[in-house]
């Protein structure tokens, strides 16, 4: 029967992405997989799609062991994937996109007319009014998403897997997608639907499986549960690792160090107003695609706001580049340390010294001072490395992250913006990074931290703002907020302030 996951384990380095996930999906049902970021949803899908292999455990598909060796292998076994990032070739036509990799040939030549005819047939089936010859780049986001569904259908897929398919769709577009999916399910296609938007899940799916921290929590019949039950299952830690030692509030003051007034960068950031006081840690909770990173990048001068204003210590500022922002005392610790934070052609000393020395406009590299500072930072931040001349790739993820945070903190900024400060970091390093951030705030720095990690936001922030679809949904006092109230704000359509 159906699709069975049996004790699936997968780890990447020291991170356990999946820890013994077991559940099954019945033939012909619409089955949702939900969970917080990092719960293991994507990893599970990647295993099913043949992109990565499980360390142990097996998938059974129609009672036979199924271990796809490549995405092509998975497709040939009837698993159709619709990815979040909308993989399509913008320069190719709709029919070329659909048949890419499995073109129909006659006498060794492409049979354009056969491919066009079959494309037309599948488009009709999805009641899509698209020209098979139109280039994919001329399609709307929704149609591109549906193009992937069409592609899966032409390969006779029996399980259609969708990963956050509505992230970039409007409500009307999403409605059309749901109509299509319901029709497909009626025709017997099994649907595996991954999303963190619970209202959608409740509209579409028969059963819901919840994953948390790489583990299976439970499978629920949609008809028998409420949204709140699912939210509880998603976050469901009993103890909140709320910082035992709440910070002293001495350094805090009411005057805003950073103040945003109706700041927009359309279409991703919409009319965000907030303030961060001296010594205060404000947390923004938002899921992937909520515009949280874009908000920080707009403050940091990477993007220009389309309207609204930024004020630092009461003076309106505008930054043309991160350099401008950093010179004014606003710095950003970016989300992706590999891509945005570290130089692998430099040793730790250079990595730690660059932002500070660049901002000071020194002419010469002052190696002796930098070595001394780097030694001190390694000690103060407890960065485990063979020395200041170690290359960053010899460090663990947690220690790399400490380097990225430390290099900015050492410039003594007024405002510290942090984007997912402990992403992919082990628990010990996470705790240490939190401690160091608190210490900076206690010394008067204004801290704005964005995270999709609920316990992190709850442990770190004095006030919690929830962001969804580019706008702030509401504010919660960290003292009274719970994981459920935060998640509720982040996933629900109606605003409950």
């Amino acid at each position: 029967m159906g699709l069975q996951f049996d004790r699936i384990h997968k780890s990447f380095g020291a991170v356990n992405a999946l820890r013994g996930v077991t559940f099954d999906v019945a033939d012909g049902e619409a089955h949702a997989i939900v969970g917080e970021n990092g719960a293991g949803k994507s990893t599970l899908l990647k295993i099913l799609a043949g992109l990565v292999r499980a360390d142990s455990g097996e998938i059974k598909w129609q009672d036979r062991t199924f271990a796809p060796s490549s995405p092509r292998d998975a497709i040939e076994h009837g698993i159709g994937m619709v990815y979040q990032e909308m993989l399509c070739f913008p320069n190719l036509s709709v029919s070329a996109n659909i048949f890419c990799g499995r073109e129909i040939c006659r006498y060794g030549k492409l049979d354009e007319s056969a491919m066009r005819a079959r494309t037309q047939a599948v488009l009709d089936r999805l009641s899509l009014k698209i020209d098979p010859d139109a280039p994919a780049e001329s399609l709307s986001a929704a149609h591109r998403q549906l193009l992937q569904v069409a592609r899966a259908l032409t390969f006779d897929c029996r399980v259609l897997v969708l990963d956050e398919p509505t992230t970039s769709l409007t409500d009307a577009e999403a409605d059309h997608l749901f109509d299509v999916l319901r029709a497909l399910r009626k025709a017997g296609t099994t649907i595996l639907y991954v999303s963190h938007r619970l209202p959608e899940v409740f509209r579409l799916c028969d059963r819901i499986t919840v994953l948390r921290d790489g583990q299976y929590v439970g499978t629920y019949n949609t008809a028998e549960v409420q949204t709140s039950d699912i939210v509880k299952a998603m976050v469901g830690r009993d103890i909140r690792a709320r910082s035992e030692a709440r910070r002293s509030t001495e350094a805090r003051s009411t005057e805003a160090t950073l103040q945003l007034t109706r700041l927009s960068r359309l279409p991703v950031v919409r009319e965000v107003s907030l303030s961060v006081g001296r010594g205060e840690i404000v947390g923004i909770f938002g899921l992937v695609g909520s515009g949280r990173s874009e908000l920080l990048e707009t403050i940091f001068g990477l993007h220009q706001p389309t309207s609204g204003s930024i004020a630092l210590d009461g003076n309106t500022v505008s930054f043309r580049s991160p350099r401008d922002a950093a010179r004014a005392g606003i710095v950003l610790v970016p989300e992706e340390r590999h891509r945005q934070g570290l130089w692998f052609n430099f040793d730790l000393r250079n990595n730690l010294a660059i932002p500070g020395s660049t901002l000071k406009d020194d002419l010469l590299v002052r190696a002796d001072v930098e070595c001394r500072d780097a030694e001190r930072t390694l000690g103060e931040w407890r960065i485990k490395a063979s020395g200041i001349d170690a290359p960053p790739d010899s460090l663990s993820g947690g220690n790399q992250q400490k380097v990225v945070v430390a290099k900015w903190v050492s410039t003594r900024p007024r405002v510290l913006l942090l984007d997912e400060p402990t992403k992919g970091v082990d628990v010990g390093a996470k705790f240490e990074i939190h401690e160091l951030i608190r210490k900076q705030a206690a010394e008067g720095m204004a801290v704005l931290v964005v995270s999709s990690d609920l316990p992190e936001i709850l442990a770190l922030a004095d006030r919690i703002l929830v962001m969804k679809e580019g706008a702030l949904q509401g504010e919660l006092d960290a003292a009274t907020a719970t994981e459920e109230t935060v998640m509720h704000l982040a996933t629900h359509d109606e605003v409950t302030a």
Partner: protein
Amino acid sequence: MKRFRAIRELSTVAILIAEILFFAWYLWPEAGRAHPFLNAENALLILKYSSIYGIAAVGAAVVIISGGIDLAPGAVIALSGVVSGYLIVVQQWSIAPSMIAGLLIGVLSGLLTSLLIVNIKLPPFIATLGVMGITRGIAFIITEGQYYDVSGRLPPGWHPLGIPIDWLAPITMFVMALIFQVLMTRFQWGRAVFSIGGNETAALFSGIAIGRVKASVYVISGLLASLAGIVLVLVQGQGKADLATGYELDIIASAVVGGASLAGGRGSVMGAVLGTLIFGVLRNALPQIPGATFYDRLIVGLVVIVIVVMDQLLLKRGK
């Protein structure tokens, strides 16, 4: 990493010495006859002609370390040579202002390249390919196929700044190499070049003025190429439009053989200069081997591949 860099430069020196020893042994003459390769006159000849590549290779190394590429140096050498030759011979200018005009050509072509790369955001390969065509084209338009006989206009026994004319090119090369070695290793500017080549996004997020640094890199490459062009014209005594044809690839190869990574973030100016010497020795010695005349291009190509593969193996072991 510092240790590795030192090893890397030493290994380039080692290759150069090994190469010299090999040709010294292979071309060892019969008793009583002068060595055709291992003599002071030939050494100066090698230095003299390698230096033209070497001066431009200093700039090429800086560009490559920044993660870019410059295809224009050969053409810029020709244009600046032609312009200073034209001013000396046709316009009867004296030597110093003509040379300054030639250097200005290099700066201008570098500025044009920067404009295309930094402001218009063309990929460096395309931008410099275009600038290469433009500069070479202007050189042909100016000369209309003629050449300017600069040698006739130089004072007999001319010693610019007291330097014998044969030594002009090598001394210029070593001075430039020294200046830029220090700039690249001891100055914030040099570290910014390395940081942009190593991870441009991280550089942007760290407040490095990427546009300014990138622009400076291409202007420097243009300036050094024009310096090479002027020196070439003075040494060779001729300014013509097909000077230095195809040099750009040899210059890039020299920088790469000297340890620069085309992925950016790695390499050294001294290494690039040593790279040009490795090629200079090959170009000088191979034609002296009986029957090898037609093999020199092939051997040069093989040497590039062998040295870069060795470099990668060494890098892997270092990790």
